[in-house]
C-alpha cells in the first residue's frame, strides 16, 4: 500500500495550513525590527514571546493532525511529520512556559 505524501482529508489539510502559518509567523516575527526585547513571560509586557507565538499555531496544527490520524484515516507522510513535530514542539514549549511562569520570582 502506497503512502500518500500530501494530506487527503480536510483535517489533515487544515493541519498543514496551520503548520505553514506557524513557520511563516515565526519567520515574520524574527525579521521584524523589535525595539523592545521579547518579554520573558506570557502576559508580562505587551506581546507574546516568540515561543508562545509558535506554541499557539503548533497547538492548532498538532491537534488537527492528531484528529485526522485518529478519526479520519489520515495516513499521509506530511501529516505524520506535522503531528509528531508539532506535538513535540508543543510539549517542549509548554514545559518551558511552565518553568518561566509557574515558579515564584
Amino acid at each position, binding site marked *: 500500500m502506497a503512502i500518500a505524501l500530501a494530506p487527503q482529508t480536510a*483535517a489533515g489539510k487544515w493541519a498543514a495550513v496551520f503548520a505553514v502559518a506557524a513557520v511563516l509567523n515565526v519567520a515574520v516575527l524574527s525579521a521584524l525590527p523589535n525595539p523592545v526585547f521579547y518579554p520573558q513571560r506570557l502576559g508580562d509586557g505587551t506581546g507574546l514571546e516568540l515561543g508562545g507565538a509558535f506554541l499557539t499555531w503548533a497547538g492548532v496544527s498538532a491537534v488537527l493532525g492528531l484528529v485526522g490520524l485518529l478519526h479520519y484515516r489520515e495516513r499521509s507522510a506530511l501529516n505524520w511529520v506535522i503531528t509528531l513535530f508539532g506535538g513535540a514542539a508543543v510539549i517542549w514549549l509548554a514545559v518551558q512556559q511552565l518553568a518561566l*511562569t509557574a515558579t515564584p520570582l
Partner: protein
Amino acid sequence: MLPAGRSGRWAVSLFLLSLFLFMVPWFPESLATIGGILAVAALIGSVVCTFASRKHSVRDALRTGLGRLSVAALAASAVVAAASLVVTFDPGLYGAAGILGLIAGVLGVLAWFRLSSDRIRLLPHTAVGWWSAGILAPSAIVQFSPWASLSGPAGIAATGAALVAILCYHERSVLSAAALVTTATMLFYFYALFLVSNLIRS
C-alpha cells in the same frame, strides 16, 4: 478542503490574519491594546462571516428568536460593562458583562445554525467537534491555576478545531459553538478593559 462560498473563505482568512496580528509584539502599551482589540475583532468577525452565506443575511439571523435573544444579551452586556467601568468600578460586575457577551456570541452562532434549518444538538456529533469541546474545558479550568499561560494557546486550538468542524464537517452543536466563540470573546473583553481604563485614566 476550503469551505464552499466566499464567506467561508473570508472567515478562514480573517482567522489566520487575526492570529498573525495577535502575535506581533507592538511596543507602546496603548498600541498593543489596540492591536489586540483589532485582532480579536477580526476573530469575532471571522466567526460572523463563517455563517454569512449568500442565502441568508445578518438581518435574517437577527429576525429569528435566537438572534433577538443574542442582541438582547449583547445590549445587556454593554450596559453592565458601562455600569461597572463608569459607576461602580466593580471587577466582578465586569466579569458578569463578559459572561453576558459570551452568551450573546453562542446564541448568535446558534441563530445561524437555525437559519440554515439544521438540527441543533447540545453535544457534538463529529470527532473534531468533540475535540474542540474537549480542549476548551481544560483551557478554561487551567486559567485559574499556576499554568494559566497555557490557557490562551489551548483556547485558540479549541477555536481552530471548532472552525474546521463547523466549516468542513457540518458540526452543529452548542458545545462547538461555545468553543468557537469563547476565546475570542474573553480576549475581547480583556483588551477592552485595558483600553477603557487607559482612556479613563488619561
